[in-house]
């Protein structure tokens, strides 16, 4: 009986995340527009785009194979699976036993893997360029993510998401300098993985600069909708990971209605704050040249390494 | 009686060594052959002395063989070969005469040092001559190394055999007769084969200078 309630709560948490995701992307765009003194499209504009795309017909390249058609479904499914695993609202997760932080990271890598293949399939130069650059960035970000997980697991005693959140919530002592360094490292990785500004410009269609956009250039109709939605969900997941793993206050410990509403409220507040930070960041700095990106990622790697050593020494 | 016996032996073996050293001093091939002939004759004489005083009747046969084989037959064959390749006098050997004499002196001293335990162990009166025999062995080795002509190398080798024969006679009053005869047979066969090869070298290389034989390397 309890399992079924837990299962239902887990699924509803994922559904909530799915619903909020396009709005989050819309919010970031709206904030950037306001910062650039533009009126900007309303925050719910992405919902309209998705609805429009779902009604459009699909044009598929003649060179493409079944990989091209299957990729959107795989990307979307893996991102939703991650949403099920990540503690967005409540801590005693029903699916805690199914996967830990490592599984989350590698599920996201599964999504990037198939998206890159889909980029290569139509045989256009842009898709190939996007795939190559996306995989390069993903590969270089892996060590940072692994070390950040190591730092968190060190203090929490396990890589299990629920345990990490519970450990950080259990008291101020748990928040060590290692956490701060790990947070910064993961923040840089978030910008890299979700294709935000210093690494990739989400708003541009300039062939030479886009990474994520280049891979999905060939998609249209419902496939493109699925991929856009998955991308926005990925952004939301990373934001919730950042907030809950490092600033978990407000995450519902029990299943009472009051705790749940508090959790939703704290989630919204945290998302808005993070969206604001990203929007300010994107208006302040310009896009890095592709071959400078590894330096940024090595900065994040060093931060993660310091996080691990500090948590080692202060244990 | 023993004193005279050992005196004669020392005289004989020193004469044998001196003839060896003459080889190093002189340059011409004819001198080499005559030095070798006389050396064999003196060696035969020493063998007769040891046979007489040591009362070992077989040694007389050995002395006769020595005299016949190394005193007469081999020198005649060597002279025939020498007349055939006479125009080639022994050119400058690897080591000039002065250094080769010094080196052979050192070798004789080394021979002395090495054979001291032999002399100490032996109770035979002829033991005093053994270091000289060892000296001759080492000197003849040096001769074979430093001489350029095949003919002279053969003479050096024959001198080496003389040295060892002397060592055998002085040390043990001669090894058992059958073995001694076998040794002579081998010595003769060995010399004949070397003679055949020298003729072959002369045919193919038009000279018997061993320095030309350096085509096979590595």
């Amino acid at each position, binding site marked *: 009986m309890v399992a079924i309630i837990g299962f239902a709560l887990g699924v509803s948490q994922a559904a909530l995340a799915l619903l909020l995701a396009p709005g989050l992307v819309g919010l970031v765009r709206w904030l950037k527009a306001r910062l650039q003194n533009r009126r900007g499209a309303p925050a719910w504009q992405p919902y309209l785009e998705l609805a429009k795309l779902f009604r459009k017909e699909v044009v598929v390249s003649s060179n493409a194979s079944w990989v091209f058609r299957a990729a959107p479904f795989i990307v979307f499914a893996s991102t939703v699976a991650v949403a099920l695993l990540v503690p967005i609202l409540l801590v005693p997760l029903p699916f805690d036993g199914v996967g830990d932080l490592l599984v989350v990271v590698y599920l996201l890598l599964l999504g990037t893997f198939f998206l890159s293949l889909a980029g290569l399939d139509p045989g256009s130069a842009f898709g190939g360029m996007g795939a190559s650059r996306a995989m390069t960035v993903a590969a270089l970000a892996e060590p940072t993510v692994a070390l950040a997980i190591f730092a968190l697991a060190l203090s929490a005693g396990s890589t299990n998401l629920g345990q990490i959140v519970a450990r950080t919530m259990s008291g101020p002592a748990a928040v060590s300098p290692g956490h701060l360094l790990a947070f910064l490292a993961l923040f840089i990785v978030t910008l890299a993985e979700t294709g935000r500004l210093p690494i990739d410009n989400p708003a541009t269609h300039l062939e030479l600069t886009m990474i994520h956009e280049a891979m999905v250039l060939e998609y249209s109709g419902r496939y493109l909708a699925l991929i856009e939605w998955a991308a926005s969900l990925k952004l939301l997941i990373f934001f919730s990971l950042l907030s809950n793993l490092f600033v978990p206050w407000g995450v519902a410990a029990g299943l009472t209605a009051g705790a749940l509403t508090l959790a939703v409220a704290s989630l919204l507040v945290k998302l808005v704050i993070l969206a604001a930070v990203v929007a300010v960041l994107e208006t302040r700095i310009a896009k890095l040249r592709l071959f400078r990106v590894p330096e940024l990622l090595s900065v994040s790697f060093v931060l993660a390494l310091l996080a691990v050593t500090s948590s080692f020494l202060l244990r | 009686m023993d004193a005279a016996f050992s005196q004669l032996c020392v005289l004989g073996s020193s004469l044998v060594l001196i003839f060896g050293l003459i080889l190093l001093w002189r340059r011409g091939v004819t001198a080499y052959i005559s030095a070798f002939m006389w050396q064999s004759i003196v060696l035969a004489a020493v063998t007769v002395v040891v046979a007489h005083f040591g009362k070992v009747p077989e040694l007389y046969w050995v002395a006769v063989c020595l005299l016949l084989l190394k005193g007469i037959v081999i020198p005649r064959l060597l002279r025939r070969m020498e007349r055939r390749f006479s125009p080639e006098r022994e050119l400058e050997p690897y080591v000039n005469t002065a250094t080769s004499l010094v080196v052979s002196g050192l070798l004789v001293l080394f021979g002395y040092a090495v054979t001291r*335990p*032999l002399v100490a*162990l032996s109770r035979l009166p002829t033991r005093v001559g053994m270091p000289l025999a060892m000296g001759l062995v080492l000197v003849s080795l040096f001769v074979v190394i430093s001489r350029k002509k095949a003919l002279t190398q053969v003479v050096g*080798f024959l001198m080496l055999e003389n040295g060892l024969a002397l060592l055998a006679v002085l040390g043990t009053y001669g090894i058992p007769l059958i073995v001694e005869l076998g*040794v002579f047979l081998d010595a003769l066969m060995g010399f004949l084969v070397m003679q055949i090869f020298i003729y072959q070298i002369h045919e193919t290389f038009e000279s018997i200078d061993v320095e030309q*034989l350096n085509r*096979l390397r590595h």
Partner: protein
Amino acid sequence: MRTFALLLGPPLLAALLATMVRPYRRIVGGVNALLSLGSLGASLALWSELLAGRVVTSGPGEFLRADALSTLLAMCVSVVGALAAWLGLSRDDSYNGAQVRRFRIFVNLFTFTMLFAVTSNNVGFMWIAIEATTITSALLIPLQVTKASVEASWKYILIGSIGIALAFGGTVLGYFDFVNMAGRHETALNWTVLVASAAHLHPQVIQLAFVFILVGYGTKAGLAPMHTWLPDAHAEAPAPLSAMMSGVLLAVALYAVVRWQAVVNAAVGRGFTDGLYIALGVLSIVIASFSLVVQSNYKRMLAYSSIEHTGLICVGLALGPLGIFAAMLHMLNHTLAKSTMFFLAGRVLHRYGTAEIGHVSGLLKAMPWTGGLFATGLLAVIGLPPFGLFLSEFALIRAGFAAGRPWLMGLVLALMTVAFVSMIGHLNRMLYGAPAAGVSVGEGSHWPLVPLAACMVTLLVFGVTLPTPLETLLRQIVEIVGS
């Protein structure tokens, strides 16, 4: 007495027959081959006698004696002798009748002298026989008079004779040591007498004698630094002769050294001989392995490989009873493998006309069976399973580790690997690729390959198991030498 007659008689008879038949006829070769089987049978008889525990001796003063060591060597000599007789020079091998006749005479004399050397109990006669081997084999090297063969023969005869003369010096000193201890009498030079009275010999003199012996017979065995004649002689000699020389003459010379080792060990203990063996053995392996790296002539490559294996056997002899067991087994395996290799090299030389590795290519395509056997033989020589040399090398190195010399064994393993790598490189250059221009493809006559393949099969059998009669023979040898 009968077995010795059957052992020593056939080569003499064959030589006599060859001399009498003035214009050479093929029947001489046939008879020679049949007679060689006689001496092979005799050595097997000696072996069975030994298994029954009886050491056969005969002749006045027991001057002929066949104990375990002699029987093993007699086996090797008669096997290789039989191979040489069966596969001897045929007239179309660019040799004329007179040359083949001369070859038949002296090869049989060569076999006779070696058999006599290994079965004579008298150390003096052993010396005479080994000197005679030098003389009889020297005459055969310049069978075809070329600048190279004349040069090789002169170097062989001169270095060999000087070496043997020093060995005679050693024999004299040994006899001198015995005479001072027990006075002169007829059987003083018998090995059995020397070993029995070895304890009373004067250590200083017997050590000097052993130095003479080791340098003397070491020259004949191709031990460094007296090995210099070996590559020239084996590369220039006709194939059957170089097979006999590389295969078994080196073993006979080592046999003589081992005889005297038994005497010296009984007199002064193992320390002295072990030191000398390891010094010269390692020097031989070093020189041979590094000479193999840049070798460009496959007959010289096989010659240097013989030097390497002789060095390895020497090191083995210095590693205690287990080492002697392994060294003797290695000697037997090496004899089989190396003689087969030289016969095959002879066939390749006959077909390609050149001994340069660079000019021989596509051997597998040109002569598939000979090429295949050549490759298998070379893999056996460099010590790969399933051939016998792998087992004997394993036992040898195990003896080395058991004797407490890990660093020495490490060095030997490293040098063997250098030799292995370079010979594999040379083999690959010869086997693969297209056959050189102007080389007729297709195997010549197949029947000579049959005995060689038989040798390879015996080597395979020794590689998989160690037949008990051979094991008892080797155990007896260890008792003789190691006591």
